């Protein structure tokens, strides 16, 4: 009997390879679904085990490295995110995936992400991190070279940063597994408190922290390393993006948590706190805050449906980082909660986008409109997702956002609080833009025979939408799991209620009273006169007759005034900066090669002479 953790990690990869080899339509989809379902089943089964014992562990030795894997509450929660959203995304891909290539790499990235979440030592963490990056990169490469290259370079940069950090730690600690690394840093912290000299000097600590921050920041899409995300998220199979943005970005979040787990105490003692929040967390938190604002504003100004949601997920990740950065138990729980809800609604959103693109073949807002009548099911899903992301009670989006708000403001962090509020408003803004341009208004005639979502996509969306609602009405379910991570009741309350002591939120009451209010309104509505359905052209245009020949809907530059207001800030772009650096390097390289390998043998002989002289000076 091979170990269940191994099954959880490698089942998707195996399925992917099989699907790739037996490239038969029907078979490969079945295999892939099984490959995505098996880990989920094992995780659900593992829940029973975790109730009795603290963790499940497993380790193997390979090329001199001991690879250790562990499944405990934290990794279980994250793995469940991967499991559910990954499964939904795979279902979606059944409709949208074109060839076995996509199956192979989509499932490979799922394996990678499972590995990252279950890894218990730095090397396997790194290796699965790389696998995840590589697989997702291949998914993008198929669609767009430039975007994929940008993504890969930034990711590999991050990965190498992580590698160096790991190496530095290894050189001092002599071990890779989390427990011993954590122990060493803890002892270090104690030493620094005692005042005796520490194993890692302050600067080394800063270096390691910075390197890790870079590594995880890239994957999470933190400002200013977010530039890859919009292109990469949009230039691939959108069903896959549900996984890409919903799960893979959570690997970066998980990494931030790993920083806490490993270096937390040491950093806290070295750099001190502000209030109850560690100073080093402030870096993360403020980066997160800026990410919220930048991502949100740019999302509002996009003209491409995929890009809008790409930026939106950057912005949402910002929330999670703020929660993590504040660094109290409550705020971290809030952050994980938001990680869950973000995975749920953003996965749902990208599946919706996948449906729209699958059915209409359009990606620009200017080509869409009035689809609500043609795709009612999809629109219903979109409605749930919109309310959830905009943070409308009683949906999961609000519960998690509310937790983050309370956690942050309770720590007396005014600026971050303001950033969060701005973020929620900008969420409204870009969502309405999406709603208006895609679902409402006048429908271009070429979309008149658009069909509704295909069954697999519909099922996938249904799963996620249902979870959105359930976890919103009964937020205590999630809160209970999160409390297990810290082993104490940080969020009290029943399954309906979150009670922080200084603030309460009850999903059930809100639902009830919302229903009551809507009933009252409905009564008034139905007492009124009968309504007559009119076409979209029967609308007031200063008395001008309206026909379908014209575009009644504002589809381009919907937020032009915003653009004008922000004109100054929009002029600076990190994306362009990086591209310039890239081209500089290329030119430099070309010049170098041109001058060094100039094909002139005398020059080569002179090199020899030069080296000889150097040697002589060296020697004598």
């Amino acid at each position, binding site marked *: 009997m091979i170990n269940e953790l191994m099954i959880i990690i490698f089942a998707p990869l195996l399925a992917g390879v099989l699907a790739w080899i037996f490239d038969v339509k029907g078979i490969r989809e079945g295999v892939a679904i099984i490959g995505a379902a098996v880990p989920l089943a094992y995780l659900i089964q593992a829940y029973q085990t975790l109730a009795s014992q603290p963790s499940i562990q497993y380790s193997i030795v390979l090329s001199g490295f001991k690879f250790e894997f562990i499944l405990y509450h934290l990794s279980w929660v994250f793995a469940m995110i991967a499991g559910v959203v990954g499964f939904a995304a795979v279902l979606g891909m059944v409709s949208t995936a074109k060839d076995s290539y996509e199956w192979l790499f989509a499932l490979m990235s799922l394996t990678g992400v499972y590995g990252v979440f279950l890894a218990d030592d730095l090397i396997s963490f790194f290796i699965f991190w790389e696998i995840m990056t590589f697989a997702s990169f291949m998914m993008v490469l198929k669609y767009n070279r430039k975007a994929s290259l940008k993504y890969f370079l930034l990711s590999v940069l991050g990965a190498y940063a992580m590698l160096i950090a790991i190496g530095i730690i290894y050189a001092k600690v002599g071990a890779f597994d989390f427990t011993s690394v954590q122990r060493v840093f803890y002892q270090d912290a104690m030493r620094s408190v005692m005042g005796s000299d520490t194993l890692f000097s302050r600067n080394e600590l800063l270096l390691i922290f910075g390197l890790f921050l870079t590594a995880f920041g890239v994957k999470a899409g933190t400002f200013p390393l977010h530039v890859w995300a919009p292109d990469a998220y949009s230039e691939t199979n959108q069903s896959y993006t549900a996984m890409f943005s919903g799960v893979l970005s959570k690997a970066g979040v998980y990494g931030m948590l790993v920083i806490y787990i490993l270096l937390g105490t040491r950093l806290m003692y070295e750099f001190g706190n502000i209030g109850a929040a560690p100073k080093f967390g402030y870096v993360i938190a403020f980066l997160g805050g800026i990410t919220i604002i930048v991502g949100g504003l740019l999302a509002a100004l996009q003209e491409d449906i995929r890009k809008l949601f790409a930026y939106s997920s950057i912005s949402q990740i910002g929330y999670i980082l703020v929660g993590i950065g504040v660094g109290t138990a409550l705020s971290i729980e809030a952050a994980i909660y938001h990680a869950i809800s973000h995975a749920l609604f953003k996965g749902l959103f990208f599946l919706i986008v996948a449906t729209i693109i699958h059915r209409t073949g359009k990606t620009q807002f200017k080509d869409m409109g009035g689809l609500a009548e043609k795709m009612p099911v999809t629109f219903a899903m979109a409605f749930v997702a919109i309310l959830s992301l905009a943070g409308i009670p009683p949906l999961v989006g609000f519960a998690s956002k509310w937790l983050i708000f309370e956690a942050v403001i309770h720590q007396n962090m005014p600026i971050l609080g303001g950033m969060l509020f701005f973020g929620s408003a900008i969420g409204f803004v870009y969502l309405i833009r999406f709603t208006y341009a895609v679902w409402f208004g006048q429908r271009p005639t070429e979309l008149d025979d658009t069909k509704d979502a295909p069954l697999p996509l519909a099922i996938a969306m249904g799963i996620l939408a249902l979870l959105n609602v359930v976890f919103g009405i009964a937020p205590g379910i999630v809160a209970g799991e999160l409390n297990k991570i810290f082993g104490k009741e940080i969020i009290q309350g029943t399954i309906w209620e979150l009670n922080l002591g200084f603030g309460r939120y009850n999903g059930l009451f809100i639902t009830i009273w919302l229903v009551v209010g809507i009933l*009252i309104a409905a009564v008034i509505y139905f007492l009124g006169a009968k309504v007559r359905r009119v076409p979209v052209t029967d609308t007031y245009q200063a008395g001008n007759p309206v026909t379908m020949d014209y575009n009644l809907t*504002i589809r381009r530059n919907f937020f032009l005034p915003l653009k004008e207001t922000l004109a100054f800030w929009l002029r600076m772009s990190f994306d362009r900066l990086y591209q310039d650096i890239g081209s500089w390097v290329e030119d430099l390289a070309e010049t170098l090669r041109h001058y060094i390998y100039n094909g002139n043998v005398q020059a080569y002989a002179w090199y020899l002479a030069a080296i000889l002289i150097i040697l002589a000076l060296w020697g004598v």
Partner: protein
Amino acid sequence: MMVIETALKALLILLYATFVGFMFMGIIRIVTARIHRRVGPPIYQPILDTIKLLSKKSSITHGLIYDFGIIYALGATILALMFIPLGGVSILRAYGDLILITFLLEIPMLGIMFAAMSSGNPWAGLGAQRALLTLLAIQVPLGFAIVALGEFYGTFSTYQIVMAQQSMGWSITSLPLLLAAVAYDLVLQAMFGKEPFDIMIAPGEISLGPMVEFGGKHMGILQIQHAIALFAETLFFSNIFLGGAVITAFASPIINTLATLVVLLIKQTAVLMVAIFIGAIFPRFTIDQAARFYWKWPTIIAAAGAILAAL
């Protein structure tokens, strides 16, 4: 029994809020008229308007969302109302969380936007866009004001804040919250949709923006929603900044409640008056001017308040 009592209470609150809300709308029109040296309509005029609109004999719809958005807006407003402490008689005051109420006061607009945009009228779209950008603009000072409150009192429960004010005086008597209150009041101006921030419904320019397609009972429901929202927003403001009111001086709870309501009514009217006066004498900002304004002064004031409260 419990349920019936609650339901009765809720109904009473609802009726009271609606009635007072309509009165407020009437007051707005009268006072504005007086400032214009006009006679102005009778104070019950908004009620007549609503009855007329509801009694229209024909009415159109642009689809399911067009109707549902309206209903949702009113429902959400009623929901918000239930969470705001109204002296001692509100239903869910125990769950009246600052953040929650702030969100709840915003979501009716979402419903209206959905309905308006589903009509496909370009002016409705334009109005929605402007309304959203106004929302975006006010969100920053609003957020800072809320943050200041939360940090100052260390709790998010509106009711506890009211109680605290009973003992330690109104919020605006302390500097940080005074700043927050100033910023919040500027925000209220946009929440009421009064000048100078009513570009979203600019009647002459985009013919009421989001409202352009609503007629008959849709508009009537929106009038009711507007009335309740007016009541709720003023009530919220006077609760968190003007000390609310919890009167226990008299023996019988009935009289206590009535006295509470009266006190609250006075405070709400005061809040309303400020808004009217500002609105009556100012011209209209374009949307980017409004955004720049809100992101400059109110934000600075509110942020100062929040930071002071944090220290």
